[in-house]
């Protein structure tokens, strides 16, 4: 009996070391990609359409063109936003991932730091037509300053103020608000009979953090200092976050129920007339999906603190958008570069961006008439004049989570009837910063 047990233990130990060694093999990653499988590509697309299915319908015809041109078989997978980053991290760790993938452009610097993505130095960029093809602001949101970008821009987006024209007319409002004071005034006029001035996505940390960034810029706050260290709880940052949360907490122009919105319910609220205004990026196709026709809503730039804000504070959107990257462990490097070239070609850019309601980051494609409709003109102008990229530092992803979460809790406090004060905002933001474990 004892001998048997001993033998079994030995067998176990052997098996353990064998499997452990097998696992270790996966993490030997020094290569810059190979061309071992020149006829296959895996592409992870982000969810840009109204559903994953919609994305497949949009992307498949374009990808078929590429397959016909090159003879490369492209496997497409559309990945929802809430799991995309986890999937990328897992792929980076294991070395087993797609060849080409979409990333949220705010993750660029964070993912750049993992060294899992192919660096786009000038030589590589030349293979897809050179960096001059891209709008500089969009390319600036593709990695830390002074380093070769970790990705190239694919779709550009900006925030805008969407408003319900009928509700504005009914309340006698002629112009969309240009400052936040006007915004709150308009909001108060619209707030009556169970309807509200604005809908906010209070339970969605990422969405919150984007607004924190823009309000922060307007107050002169950056959430990171020059060395890339977090400064979440500066007085300016506190003022910025409080101003946004106050729409629900003190101005009461947003419904308390918004505090738990995290599934894009705010778009639905605008479309169904439950709220008169919405701060969103490229809401067009989603509003349409909820039955709101393009002539029923107006699009204006997001308000500023004053009519003429000082230089550096005249920011009313982040440079939002999607970048396309090549995974360093690809086994079809040339094919991957060809695919990125195809995706950023003028024709593909035109087709995809016009369907998704985004702006092409490729200069030439942007000039097409398809992007001169009123709402897209607004988005385009904001992008080229008054937008700023989120901090391109390795810890950016943590900012989105921690500050966004703190704001979620502040909304929850307000919804529960607790007062939101400068002190309570300060406390939450300090706590968020302390969670940065360095």
């Amino acid at each position, binding site marked *: *009996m004892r001998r*048997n047990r001993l*033998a*079994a233990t030995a*067998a*176990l130990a052997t*098996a*353990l070391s064998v*499997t*452990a060694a097998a*696992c*270790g093999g996966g*993490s*030997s*990653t*020094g290569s810059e990609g190979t061309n071992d499988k020149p006829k296959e590509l895996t592409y992870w697309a982000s969810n840009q359409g109204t559903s994953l299915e919609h994305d497949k319908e949009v992307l498949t015809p374009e990808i078929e063109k590429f397959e016909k041109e090159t003879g490369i078989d492209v496997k497409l997978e559309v990945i929802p936003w*809430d799991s995309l980053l*986890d999937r990328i*991290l897992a792929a*980076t*760790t294991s*070395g087993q991932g797609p060849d080409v993938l979409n990333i949220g452009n705010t993750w660029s610097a*964070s*993912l750049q*730091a*993992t*060294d*899992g993505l192919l660096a786009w130095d000038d030589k590589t960029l030349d293979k897809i037509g050179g960096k001059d093809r891209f709008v500089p602001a969009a390319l600036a949101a593709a990695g830390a300053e002074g380093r070769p970008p970790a990705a190239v821009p694919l779709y550009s987006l900006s925030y805008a103020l969407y408003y319900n024209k009928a509700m504005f007319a009914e309340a006698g409002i002629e112009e969309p608000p240009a400052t936040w004071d006007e915004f709150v005034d308009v909001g108060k006029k619209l707030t009556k009979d169970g309807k509200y001035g604005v809908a906010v996505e209070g*339970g969605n*940390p990422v969405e919150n953090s984007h607004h924190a960034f823009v309000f922060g810029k307007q107050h002169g706050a950056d959430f990171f200092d020059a060395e890339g260290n977090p400064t979440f709880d500066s007085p300016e940052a506190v003022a910025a976050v409080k101003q946004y949360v106050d729409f629900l907490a003190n101005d009461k122009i947003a*419904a308390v*129920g918004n*505090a*738990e919105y*995290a599934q894009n*319910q705010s778009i639905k609220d605008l479309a169904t007339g439950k709220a008169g205004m919405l701060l969103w990026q490229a809401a067009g196709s989603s509003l349409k999906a909820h039955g709101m026709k393009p002539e029923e809503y107006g699009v204006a730039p997001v308000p500023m603190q004053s009519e003429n804000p000082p230089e550096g504070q005249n920011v009313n959107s982040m440079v939002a958008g999607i970048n396309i990257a090549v995974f*360093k462990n690809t086994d079809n490097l040339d094919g991957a570069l060809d695919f990125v070239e195809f995706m950023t070609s003028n024709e593909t850019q035109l087709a995809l961006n016009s369907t998704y309601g985004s702006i092409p980051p490729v200069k030439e494609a942007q000039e097409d008439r398809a992007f001169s409709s009123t709402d897209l003109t607004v988005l385009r102008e904001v992008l080229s004049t008054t937008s700023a990229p989120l901090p391109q530092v*390795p810890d950016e*992803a*943590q900012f989105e*989570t*921690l500050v*966004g*979460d703190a704001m*979620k*809790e502040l*909304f*929850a*406090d307000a*919804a*529960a009837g607790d007062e939101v004060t400068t002190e309570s905002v300060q406390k939450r933001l300090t*706590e968020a910063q*302390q*969670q*940065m*474990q360095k």
Partner: protein
Amino acid sequence: MTATALDTPPAGPGDKPPAGRGAARKRRRTGRGRVRRGALPYLLLLPALLLELLIHLVPMAVGVVMSFKELTQRYIRDWGEAPWAGLDNFRIAVDFDAPVGEALLRSFFITCAFTVLAVGFSWLLGVTAAILMQDAFRGRGLLRAIFLTPYALPVYTAVITWSFMLQRDNGLVNHVIHDQLGLTSQPTFWLIGDNAFVSLVLVSVWRTWPFAFLVLTAALQNIPREVYEASAIDGAGIWQQIRRITLPSLRPVNQVLVLVLFLWTFNDFNVPYILFGKSAPESADIISIHIYQSSFVTWNFGAGSAMSVLLLLFLLVVTAGYLLLTSRGRKAASA
């Protein structure tokens, strides 16, 4: 354990299972060819063992290694290169005066409270329903099937439905409580703020109690009817029967059941994650989600692993203590 299984001849349909520990012990002593056949069970177990190694033990071992490394985003691509951090990750995790440790400790206490409540209610519901359904009556099969439904549903489908039902503005729960019954003056928030904890316990109990019910129903089948009949003749009422016959007979099953429920609930990731998403509200900041946040969302896998290792140690200690305590109690009871 394996020896018992081996030496017992395969049970045919007519065979009675060994009546108790005494019988099993006797068979083991008289078993022949033990040494020759000794290798067979290991051979049969080998595939399962290998898979168990691959799926559970190796990742655990890797996790333990990771917990001693400074595994941030800079090193995840080639995590062999990550510098050794010694005990730093653990030090940060258990430094309860500093923010990170304090948050972990708070999350730990919330998880304890949640586990006690969820396991308690699940067990209570399970045992009550099982006892009530012990006697045959019309519709018993149907009721049993209905009771088991939550357990049979895929967890994602079930919990996402709950998250819709618990929405403040459009949810079914508030529609009934507020709109129809008028019990509250304002619609209640169930998914944010302090009520999130209540929702979590509720959904978790709803998910778990059918399992308790199932196991206890099976266990009740083993209590001979004659014991009840005899006690009834002696004048025992229903409460006395439950207290003196049913519950003592269920004791060995309960011992395992409560332990399993405890481990599942304490470690549960699916229910809170589906209910609240990546960032649970403070009141329902369960430790599994907290660790997920600490590793995936802040990209510090070393720290996350250190917290997981601490959790593993805690659960091991509790399990060992529990088994020691209950088996000693059982020995005392049977002596």
